C-alpha cells in the first residue's frame, strides 16, 4: 500500500502539472481538494481519467467521488479494493 501511495503522488504531480511540488510535499492524509493541494473540479476529472488509464477503474457512482478523492490514503485504498 505504501508503494502505491508513493506511485500515486508521482502520477498526480505529472497528470495535474503540479509544478514545484514533490512527492515529499504531499502528506498521504492531507485533503487533496480545497486546502491541501488546492485541486479543482477539472483536476477531479483528470484523476478519474488517471484511474481509468492506469488502473482500469471506472467510477460508476459519482457521488462516491468526494469520499474516494479525499486524500492519497483514501485513493490508494479504493484502488487496492477495485483494481483489475
Amino acid at each position, binding site marked *: 500500500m505504501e508503494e502505491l501511495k508513493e506511485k500515486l503522488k508521482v502520477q498526480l504531480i505529472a497528470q*495535474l502539472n503540479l509544478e514545484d511540488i514533490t512527492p515529499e510535499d504531499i502528506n498521504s492524509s492531507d485533503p487533496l481538494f480545497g486546502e491541501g493541494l488546492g485541486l479543482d473540479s477539472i483536476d477531479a476529472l483528470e484523476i478519474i*481519467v488517471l484511474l481509468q*488509464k492506469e488502473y482500469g477503474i471506472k467510477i460508476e457512482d459519482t457521488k462516491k467521488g468526494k469520499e474516494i478523492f479525499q486524500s492519497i490514503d483514501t485513493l490508494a485504498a479504493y484502488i487496492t479494493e477495485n483494481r483489475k
Partner: protein
Amino acid sequence: MPPHYFASMNNPVIRKYVSVDKRSVKVNGTDLLLNEQGADFGEFMKQIYHACSISYLKFFKMDPQSKLGFVAAKILLQDDDRDRFEPEEKAIVLANSASSLNTDEKYFESINDIPSPAVFVYTLPNIVAGEICIHHNLKGENTFFIQEEFDIQFMVSYLNILFSTTNTRKAIAGWVEVDLDDNYRAFLMDVEKEGSSEIQGNFTVDFIHQIFKL
C-alpha cells in the same frame, strides 16, 4: 455610424505596452528579459514566471496560449493601481489568427485514447482572456477576434466605440497567438479612455503600427 465619429469623441492613451516572443520580453519597447539560451516555449514561459516573481500555481495547468497571455498581462499590469477603476469599467479585447488550433490539435490527438478534460477546457481562443480577467478582476467587455493578421485600424475603432458607448474606462487590448508551428507572439497594451500622467503615446493607428513592429 462610422468609426471616426467615435474616435473624435475620445482621446484614449496607451499607458504601457508589453511584447513577448521567442527572442525576448519587452516593456514599452525596451528589453526586460532576453531568451539568450534559445529556450523552447515552455522553458521560456517558466523563466518569465520566475523572473517576474509570479506566484500562481494555476499557471502551470494553462495551455500555451493562456500562459503567453497571462505572463504578458501580468507584466503589463504589474504596477497598475487595481482600484483606480471599477472591475466593470475594465475591458479586455484580444485577437489572433490561429484561434486555439495549437490546443485543439493536442486535444484531437488525445481523443484516440481517453481525452483529457484539462486540455479540453482550453479549446477556445477566449479562454486566455478569461484567465486574465479572473486574475486581475476585470469584469467589463470581454471579446476575442479571429483575424488574418493584427488589424490595428479595427482595434482602434472597436475600442473607441467601447469607450464612447459603454462604461469602459480602461482596456487591455492586443494580440495573443501560439500557432501550430509553435511560433508565438503576445502584444498587449494598457489603454485608458482619458490621458493619465504617465503615457507612452496616443491610442492611434500610426502609433500602434510603430510599437507593434518593435
